């Protein structure tokens, strides 16, 4: 299985959010175009929402790290960085995110009560819902692994959108 790896390191500040999102979106397009496959294979037929969902998930985790990773003074330590490793393969796109902020118990994050129209607490729910697997290993450093599978199948039914 061919695999390509993209590595990106950004300061732990919201200003770098756009760089992270654009890189993730570009990686999705590469997988869609079959960049990691042998030339004898057709490009992958990803679901319509593949790119939007992975971008959403990575975006929420990035926000979570930056916003909730701040110390009591509202800033992060000088030189704080977030590392991204995007692994593109024939089968999936895996994003491993490593940060040095405070660890937390991801299992203690409740699912939002969507019927009551919450104004917060949706980030982890969005991230979980948008990928096939979200693994978090508390650190330091903390390690997030988001896996989005690229099944070589037809589009998903719109009822699952």
């Amino acid at each position, binding site marked *: 299985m061919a695999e390509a790896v993209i590595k990106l390191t950004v300061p732990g500040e*919201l*200003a770098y*959010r*756009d760089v992270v*999102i654009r890189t993730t979106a570009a990686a999705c397009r590469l997988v869609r175009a079959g960049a990691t496959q042998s030339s004898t294979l057709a490009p992958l037929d990803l679901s319509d*929402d593949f*790119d*939007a*969902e992975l*971008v*959403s998930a990575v*975006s*929420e985790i990035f*926000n979570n790290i*930056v*916003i909730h990773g701040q110390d009591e003074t509202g800033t992060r330590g000088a030189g704080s960085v977030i590392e991204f490793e995007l692994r593109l393969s024939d089968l999936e796109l895996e994003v491993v995110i490593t940060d040095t902020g405070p660890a937390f118990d991801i299992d203690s994050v409740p699912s939002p009560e*969507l*019927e009551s*129209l*919450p*104004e*917060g607490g*949706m*980030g982890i729910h*969005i991230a979980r*819902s*948008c990928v096939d697997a979200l693994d978090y290993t508390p650190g330091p450093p903390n390690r997030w692994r988001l896996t989005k599978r690229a099944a070589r199948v037809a589009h998903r039914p719109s009822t699952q*959108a």
Partner: protein
Amino acid sequence: MPVEFSRSTTEEKATLAIAGSLDAITAPEIRVVVDELVNEKQKKIVVDLAGLDLIDSSGVAVLVALYKRIRALGGSVIVVGARDQPLAIFRLLRMDRVFSI
């Protein structure tokens, strides 16, 4: 990616068009506009998201705040034009029906 917005008001409705990215960085800008709309006691608000490329949970929170506050005043908020990633997020959070998308 920045956010751009424009407002227009007629006798029957106020329209807020939001374009670009409504996210953790840009949401505070829109929150100011939400405060204005609420203070003006607008009764019918149309949020036009045809130009919106990205939204995150912070952006959704601002729109939910607008919806709740205007509803509390007896008014209504509908969202039009949502597409691509923002539409996927609204569907995921089951807000497409709330916003009459």
